[in-house]
Protein backbone atom coordinates (compact mmCIF):
# COMPACT_ATOMS: atom_id res chain seq x y z
CA UNK A 1 0.00 0.00 0.00
CA UNK A 2 1.47 3.34 -1.06
CA UNK A 3 1.24 6.38 1.13
CA UNK A 4 0.22 9.72 -0.30
CA UNK A 5 3.78 10.95 -0.74
CA UNK A 6 4.80 7.85 -2.69
CA UNK A 7 1.74 8.10 -4.90
CA UNK A 8 2.52 11.72 -5.67
CA UNK A 9 6.16 10.96 -6.42
CA UNK A 10 5.13 8.14 -8.75
CA UNK A 11 2.69 10.41 -10.57
CA UNK A 12 5.19 13.27 -10.68
CA UNK A 13 7.87 11.23 -12.40
CA UNK A 14 5.31 9.83 -14.82
CA UNK A 15 3.95 13.19 -15.93
CA UNK A 16 6.77 15.68 -15.24
CA UNK A 17 8.57 15.61 -18.56
CA UNK A 18 5.46 15.59 -20.78
CA UNK A 19 4.04 18.38 -18.61
CA UNK A 20 7.19 20.46 -18.89
CA UNK A 21 7.14 20.05 -22.67
CA UNK A 22 3.43 20.92 -22.77
CA UNK A 23 4.13 24.20 -20.98
CA UNK A 24 7.36 24.89 -22.91
CA UNK A 25 5.45 24.66 -26.20
CA UNK A 26 3.10 27.42 -25.09
CA UNK A 27 5.11 30.02 -23.25
CA UNK A 28 8.54 31.55 -22.85
CA UNK A 29 11.31 29.69 -20.97
CA UNK A 30 11.13 32.00 -17.95
CA UNK A 31 7.50 31.12 -17.33
CA UNK A 32 7.82 27.36 -17.79
CA UNK A 33 9.37 26.66 -14.42
CA UNK A 34 6.76 28.68 -12.51
CA UNK A 35 3.84 27.07 -14.33
CA UNK A 36 5.17 23.53 -13.85
CA UNK A 37 5.74 24.25 -10.14
CA UNK A 38 2.20 25.66 -9.81
CA UNK A 39 0.84 22.61 -11.60
CA UNK A 40 2.65 20.28 -9.24
CA UNK A 41 1.20 22.09 -6.24
CA UNK A 42 -2.31 21.59 -7.61
CA UNK A 43 -1.63 17.93 -8.36
CA UNK A 44 -0.38 17.40 -4.82
CA UNK A 45 -3.45 19.06 -3.36
CA UNK A 46 -5.84 17.29 -5.72
CA UNK A 47 -4.07 13.93 -5.73
CA UNK A 48 -7.24 12.07 -4.75
CA UNK A 49 -9.02 13.45 -7.82
CA UNK A 50 -6.46 12.30 -10.37
CA UNK A 51 -8.10 9.55 -12.46
CA UNK A 52 -6.28 6.22 -12.66
CA UNK A 53 -6.51 6.13 -16.41
CA UNK A 54 -5.91 9.30 -18.36
CA UNK A 55 -3.85 10.92 -15.59
CA UNK A 56 -1.68 12.81 -18.05
CA UNK A 57 -4.63 14.40 -19.85
CA UNK A 58 -6.00 15.42 -16.47
CA UNK A 59 -2.63 16.95 -15.59
CA UNK A 60 -2.56 18.84 -18.91
CA UNK A 61 -5.96 20.29 -18.00
CA UNK A 62 -4.52 21.55 -14.71
CA UNK A 63 -1.38 22.89 -16.42
CA UNK A 64 -3.57 24.70 -18.93
CA UNK A 65 -5.37 26.53 -16.13
CA UNK A 66 -2.07 27.34 -14.39
CA UNK A 67 -0.69 28.66 -17.65
CA UNK A 68 -3.77 30.81 -18.22
CA UNK A 69 -3.35 32.26 -14.73
CA UNK A 70 0.33 32.98 -15.30
CA UNK A 71 -0.38 34.63 -18.64
CA UNK A 72 -3.14 36.75 -17.13
CA UNK A 73 -0.72 37.91 -14.44
CA UNK A 74 1.90 38.69 -17.10
CA UNK A 75 -0.60 40.71 -19.12
CA UNK A 76 -1.53 42.71 -16.03
CA UNK A 77 2.13 43.35 -15.33
CA UNK A 78 2.80 44.37 -18.93
CA UNK A 79 -0.14 46.74 -18.81
CA UNK A 80 1.32 48.34 -15.72
CA UNK A 81 4.75 48.64 -17.28
CA UNK A 82 3.32 50.04 -20.51
CA UNK A 83 1.68 52.83 -18.60
CA UNK A 84 5.07 53.98 -17.30
CA UNK A 85 6.65 53.57 -20.75
CA UNK A 86 9.20 51.01 -19.69
CA UNK A 87 7.97 48.05 -21.67
CA UNK A 88 10.20 45.84 -23.75
CA UNK A 89 8.46 44.06 -26.59
CA UNK A 90 6.82 40.95 -25.14
CA UNK A 91 8.64 37.77 -25.96
CA UNK A 92 6.78 35.53 -28.31
CA UNK A 93 5.74 32.15 -27.00
CA UNK A 94 7.73 29.15 -28.18
CA UNK A 95 9.89 31.32 -30.39
CA UNK A 96 11.08 29.02 -33.15
CA UNK A 97 14.74 28.56 -33.87
CA UNK A 98 15.10 30.28 -37.24
CA UNK A 99 17.68 27.81 -38.48
CA UNK A 100 15.35 24.80 -38.26
CA UNK A 101 11.87 26.29 -38.00
CA UNK A 102 9.22 25.77 -40.63
CA UNK A 103 8.51 29.48 -40.89
CA UNK A 104 5.68 29.01 -43.36
CA UNK A 105 3.94 26.60 -41.00
CA UNK A 106 4.40 28.85 -37.96
CA UNK A 107 3.00 31.78 -39.92
CA UNK A 108 0.03 29.71 -41.07
CA UNK A 109 -0.57 28.61 -37.46
CA UNK A 110 -0.39 32.21 -36.26
CA UNK A 111 -3.24 33.12 -38.61
CA UNK A 112 -5.55 30.52 -37.04
CA UNK A 113 -7.65 31.14 -33.95
CA UNK A 114 -6.13 30.21 -30.58
CA UNK A 115 -8.74 27.44 -30.26
CA UNK A 116 -7.62 25.92 -33.57
CA UNK A 117 -3.95 26.22 -32.63
CA UNK A 118 -4.48 24.55 -29.28
CA UNK A 119 -6.38 21.64 -30.86
CA UNK A 120 -3.64 21.13 -33.43
CA UNK A 121 -0.91 21.31 -30.78
CA UNK A 122 -2.66 18.80 -28.51
CA UNK A 123 -3.13 16.50 -31.48
CA UNK A 124 0.28 16.75 -33.13
CA UNK A 125 2.65 17.72 -30.32
CA UNK A 126 1.07 16.02 -27.31
CA UNK A 127 -0.19 13.17 -29.56
CA UNK A 128 -3.52 13.02 -27.76
CA UNK A 129 -6.64 11.21 -28.96
CA UNK A 130 -9.91 13.15 -29.26
CA UNK A 131 -11.07 11.61 -25.99
CA UNK A 132 -7.91 12.76 -24.23
CA UNK A 133 -8.19 16.22 -25.79
CA UNK A 134 -11.77 16.37 -24.54
CA UNK A 135 -10.44 15.92 -20.99
CA UNK A 136 -7.94 18.74 -21.43
CA UNK A 137 -10.38 21.20 -22.97
CA UNK A 138 -13.54 20.20 -21.14
CA UNK A 139 -15.60 19.65 -24.29
CA UNK A 140 -17.05 16.45 -25.73
CA UNK A 141 -14.94 14.02 -27.73
CA UNK A 142 -17.34 14.45 -30.64
CA UNK A 143 -16.84 18.20 -30.60
CA UNK A 144 -13.08 17.66 -30.48
CA UNK A 145 -13.19 15.36 -33.50
CA UNK A 146 -15.22 17.76 -35.57
CA UNK A 147 -13.29 20.87 -34.56
CA UNK A 148 -9.97 19.13 -35.11
CA UNK A 149 -11.04 18.09 -38.57
CA UNK A 150 -11.98 21.67 -39.36
CA UNK A 151 -8.81 23.09 -37.81
CA UNK A 152 -6.70 20.80 -40.02
CA UNK A 153 -8.63 21.96 -43.05
CA UNK A 154 -8.16 25.59 -42.09
CA UNK A 155 -4.43 25.06 -41.55
CA UNK A 156 -4.12 23.38 -44.94
CA UNK A 157 -6.03 26.29 -46.48
CA UNK A 158 -3.69 28.77 -44.82
CA UNK A 159 -0.66 26.85 -46.06
CA UNK A 160 -2.09 26.98 -49.57
CA UNK A 161 -2.86 30.69 -49.37
CA UNK A 162 -0.28 33.47 -49.79
CA UNK A 163 0.11 35.43 -46.56
CA UNK A 164 -1.40 38.62 -48.02
CA UNK A 165 -4.72 36.92 -48.82
CA UNK A 166 -4.84 34.89 -45.69
CA UNK A 167 -7.68 36.71 -44.03
CA UNK A 168 -10.22 35.80 -46.70
CA UNK A 169 -11.87 32.62 -45.52
CA UNK A 170 -11.99 29.88 -48.15
CA UNK A 171 -15.18 30.10 -50.18
CA UNK A 172 -16.00 33.60 -49.00
CA UNK A 173 -14.65 35.33 -52.08
CA UNK A 174 -16.27 32.76 -54.31
CA UNK A 175 -19.67 33.75 -52.92
CA UNK A 176 -18.94 37.43 -53.44
CA UNK A 177 -17.92 36.90 -57.02
CA UNK A 178 -20.94 34.86 -57.96
CA UNK A 179 -23.17 36.76 -60.37
CA UNK A 180 -26.81 36.11 -61.15
CA UNK A 181 -27.24 34.62 -64.63
Amino acid at each position, binding site marked *: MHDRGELFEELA*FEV*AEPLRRYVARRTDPDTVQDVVADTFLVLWRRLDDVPESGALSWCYAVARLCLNNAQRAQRRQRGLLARVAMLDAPRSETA*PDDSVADIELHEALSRLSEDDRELLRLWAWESL*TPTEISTVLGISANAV*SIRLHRARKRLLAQLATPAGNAHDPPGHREVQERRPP
Partner: protein
Amino acid sequence: MTDDLEERLRAADPTTSADSTRPASSWVADLVAATMNDQSSVKSRRWRVPAAAAAIMVLGLGGYAIAQNGQDTTDPRASNSARPLELAIAGAGTSLSSCVPFSVDVLAEMPVAFSGTVVEVGEGTVLLSVDHWYRGGATEQVEISSPDLSTVSLDGAVSFSDGKRYLVTATNGVVNVCGFSAEWNADTAAAFDEAFT
Protein backbone atom coordinates in the same frame (compact mmCIF):
# COMPACT_ATOMS: atom_id res chain seq x y z
CA MET B 1 -2.28 14.86 -47.17
CA THR B 2 -3.42 14.87 -43.54
CA ASP B 3 -0.56 12.54 -42.61
CA ASP B 4 1.84 14.96 -44.26
CA LEU B 5 0.33 17.76 -42.22
CA GLU B 6 0.69 15.81 -39.00
CA GLU B 7 4.30 15.00 -39.83
CA ARG B 8 5.02 18.63 -40.68
CA LEU B 9 3.43 19.84 -37.45
CA ARG B 10 5.37 17.31 -35.40
CA ALA B 11 8.60 18.43 -37.04
CA ALA B 12 7.77 21.97 -35.96
CA ASP B 13 7.43 20.99 -32.29
CA PRO B 14 9.62 23.56 -30.51
CA THR B 15 10.59 21.13 -27.73
CA THR B 16 11.92 18.27 -29.81
CA SER B 17 15.41 19.50 -30.66
CA ALA B 18 17.35 21.70 -28.25
CA ASP B 19 15.19 20.84 -25.31
CA SER B 20 15.82 17.19 -24.57
CA THR B 21 19.28 17.32 -23.03
CA ARG B 22 18.26 17.69 -19.41
CA PRO B 23 16.99 14.46 -17.83
CA ALA B 24 13.81 14.68 -15.82
CA SER B 25 15.48 13.00 -12.85
CA SER B 26 17.64 16.08 -12.34
CA TRP B 27 14.75 18.33 -11.45
CA VAL B 28 11.64 16.26 -10.70
CA ALA B 29 12.84 14.95 -7.33
CA ASP B 30 13.65 18.49 -6.20
CA LEU B 31 10.30 19.76 -7.38
CA VAL B 32 8.45 16.87 -5.70
CA ALA B 33 10.16 17.64 -2.40
CA ALA B 34 9.51 21.37 -2.73
CA THR B 35 5.88 20.73 -3.62
CA MET B 36 5.17 18.49 -0.65
CA ASN B 37 6.73 21.07 1.69
CA ASP B 38 4.84 24.03 0.28
CA GLN B 39 1.10 23.90 -0.10
CA SER B 40 0.41 27.44 0.95
CA SER B 41 0.44 29.14 -2.42
CA VAL B 42 -2.47 27.23 -3.88
CA LYS B 43 -4.79 27.03 -0.91
CA SER B 44 -6.94 29.91 -2.05
CA ARG B 45 -7.27 28.74 -5.64
CA ARG B 46 -10.15 26.80 -7.01
CA TRP B 47 -9.71 24.40 -9.88
CA ARG B 48 -12.46 23.13 -12.01
CA VAL B 49 -11.55 19.99 -13.85
CA PRO B 50 -13.76 19.03 -16.77
CA ALA B 51 -15.84 16.47 -14.92
CA ALA B 52 -18.23 16.00 -17.81
CA ALA B 53 -15.43 15.06 -20.12
CA ALA B 54 -14.01 12.68 -17.55
CA ALA B 55 -17.40 11.07 -17.19
CA ILE B 56 -17.58 10.58 -20.93
CA MET B 57 -14.19 8.92 -20.83
CA VAL B 58 -15.18 6.61 -17.99
CA LEU B 59 -18.63 5.81 -19.31
CA GLY B 60 -17.72 5.72 -22.95
CA LEU B 61 -16.83 2.10 -22.93
CA GLY B 62 -19.74 0.56 -24.77
CA GLY B 63 -19.44 -0.32 -28.38
CA TYR B 64 -22.27 -1.18 -30.66
CA ALA B 65 -22.45 -4.35 -32.61
CA ILE B 66 -24.80 -4.96 -35.44
CA ALA B 67 -26.89 -8.03 -34.81
CA GLN B 68 -26.41 -9.80 -38.06
CA ASN B 69 -29.92 -11.27 -37.91
CA GLY B 70 -29.18 -13.52 -40.82
CA GLN B 71 -28.48 -10.58 -43.09
CA ASP B 72 -25.30 -9.52 -44.74
CA THR B 73 -24.99 -6.06 -43.25
CA THR B 74 -22.32 -5.05 -45.71
CA ASP B 75 -25.04 -5.02 -48.33
CA PRO B 76 -28.34 -4.34 -46.62
CA ARG B 77 -29.89 -3.36 -49.94
CA ALA B 78 -30.55 -7.06 -50.31
CA SER B 79 -32.87 -6.95 -47.31
CA ASN B 80 -36.51 -6.01 -47.24
CA SER B 81 -36.67 -2.24 -46.83
CA ALA B 82 -39.94 -2.44 -44.92
CA ARG B 83 -38.22 -4.31 -42.12
CA PRO B 84 -35.86 -2.38 -39.87
CA LEU B 85 -32.18 -3.09 -40.02
CA GLU B 86 -31.40 -4.38 -36.55
CA LEU B 87 -28.39 -3.16 -34.62
CA ALA B 88 -27.42 -3.97 -31.08
CA ILE B 89 -25.37 -2.35 -28.38
CA ALA B 90 -22.67 -4.77 -27.39
CA GLY B 91 -22.53 -3.55 -23.80
CA ALA B 92 -19.65 -2.21 -21.77
CA GLY B 93 -16.29 -3.85 -21.96
CA THR B 94 -14.65 -2.74 -25.14
CA SER B 95 -12.19 0.08 -24.84
CA LEU B 96 -12.20 3.51 -26.40
CA SER B 97 -8.44 3.40 -26.55
CA SER B 98 -8.72 2.36 -30.19
CA CYS B 99 -10.40 5.67 -31.04
CA VAL B 100 -9.26 6.75 -34.47
CA PRO B 101 -8.89 10.52 -34.96
CA PHE B 102 -11.85 11.81 -36.93
CA SER B 103 -11.21 12.55 -40.55
CA VAL B 104 -13.32 12.63 -43.68
CA ASP B 105 -10.92 10.11 -45.22
CA VAL B 106 -11.69 7.58 -42.50
CA LEU B 107 -15.38 8.46 -42.60
CA ALA B 108 -15.41 7.80 -46.33
CA GLU B 109 -14.38 4.19 -45.67
CA MET B 110 -17.48 3.40 -43.61
CA PRO B 111 -19.67 0.84 -45.41
CA VAL B 112 -22.85 1.79 -43.54
CA ALA B 113 -23.88 5.41 -42.97
CA PHE B 114 -27.26 7.06 -42.52
CA SER B 115 -29.11 9.90 -40.86
CA GLY B 116 -32.32 9.23 -39.00
CA THR B 117 -34.61 10.39 -36.25
CA VAL B 118 -35.48 8.43 -33.13
CA VAL B 119 -39.19 7.61 -33.35
CA GLU B 120 -39.48 5.18 -30.49
CA VAL B 121 -37.53 4.47 -27.33
CA GLY B 122 -38.50 1.15 -25.81
CA GLU B 123 -36.99 -0.98 -23.10
CA GLY B 124 -33.42 -1.27 -24.25
CA THR B 125 -34.30 -0.49 -27.85
CA VAL B 126 -34.27 2.60 -29.99
CA LEU B 127 -36.02 2.80 -33.35
CA LEU B 128 -34.74 5.31 -35.88
CA SER B 129 -36.60 6.41 -38.97
CA VAL B 130 -33.98 6.81 -41.69
CA ASP B 131 -34.27 9.99 -43.73
CA HIS B 132 -31.13 9.49 -45.75
CA TRP B 133 -28.85 6.57 -46.51
CA TYR B 134 -25.40 7.86 -47.32
CA ARG B 135 -24.20 4.34 -47.96
CA GLY B 136 -24.89 0.68 -47.42
CA GLY B 137 -28.61 0.51 -46.72
CA ALA B 138 -32.13 0.84 -48.03
CA THR B 139 -34.33 0.13 -45.02
CA GLU B 140 -36.74 2.78 -43.82
CA GLN B 141 -35.95 2.10 -40.20
CA VAL B 142 -33.05 0.96 -38.05
CA GLU B 143 -33.55 -0.60 -34.67
CA ILE B 144 -30.82 -0.48 -32.05
CA SER B 145 -31.18 -2.78 -29.11
CA SER B 146 -29.03 -3.51 -26.09
CA PRO B 147 -28.51 -6.76 -24.22
CA ASP B 148 -27.52 -4.65 -21.22
CA LEU B 149 -30.25 -2.13 -20.57
CA SER B 150 -28.00 0.07 -18.49
CA THR B 151 -25.84 0.91 -21.47
CA VAL B 152 -28.49 2.11 -23.88
CA SER B 153 -27.57 5.74 -23.62
CA LEU B 154 -23.85 5.22 -23.21
CA ASP B 155 -20.92 5.15 -25.58
CA GLY B 156 -18.45 7.77 -26.75
CA ALA B 157 -20.93 10.59 -26.18
CA VAL B 158 -23.83 9.33 -28.29
CA SER B 159 -27.08 8.98 -26.39
CA PHE B 160 -30.30 8.45 -28.27
CA SER B 161 -33.33 10.52 -27.33
CA ASP B 162 -36.84 10.41 -28.73
CA GLY B 163 -37.42 12.91 -31.53
CA LYS B 164 -33.77 13.75 -32.06
CA ARG B 165 -31.94 13.22 -35.30
CA TYR B 166 -28.64 11.35 -35.57
CA LEU B 167 -25.87 10.58 -38.00
CA VAL B 168 -24.69 7.00 -37.65
CA THR B 169 -21.98 4.90 -39.27
CA ALA B 170 -21.13 1.23 -38.82
CA THR B 171 -18.27 -0.98 -39.87
CA ASN B 172 -17.99 -4.74 -39.65
CA GLY B 173 -20.98 -5.04 -37.40
CA VAL B 174 -19.98 -2.24 -35.04
CA VAL B 175 -21.51 1.22 -34.94
CA ASN B 176 -18.64 3.68 -34.86
CA VAL B 177 -18.21 6.29 -32.18
CA CYS B 178 -15.41 8.82 -31.64
CA GLY B 179 -17.24 11.37 -33.75
CA PHE B 180 -18.20 8.93 -36.48
CA SER B 181 -21.73 8.74 -35.07
CA ALA B 182 -23.36 11.70 -33.39
CA GLU B 183 -26.52 13.66 -32.84
CA TRP B 184 -27.21 15.48 -36.09
CA ASN B 185 -25.38 18.79 -36.40
CA ALA B 186 -24.34 20.90 -39.35
CA ASP B 187 -20.61 20.21 -38.88
CA THR B 188 -20.98 16.44 -38.84
CA ALA B 189 -23.53 16.52 -41.66
CA ALA B 190 -21.11 18.54 -43.79
CA ALA B 191 -18.41 15.96 -43.09
CA PHE B 192 -20.82 13.16 -44.09
CA ASP B 193 -21.73 15.00 -47.28
CA GLU B 194 -18.06 15.43 -48.11
CA ALA B 195 -17.21 11.81 -47.32
CA PHE B 196 -20.05 10.12 -49.18
CA THR B 197 -20.37 12.21 -52.32
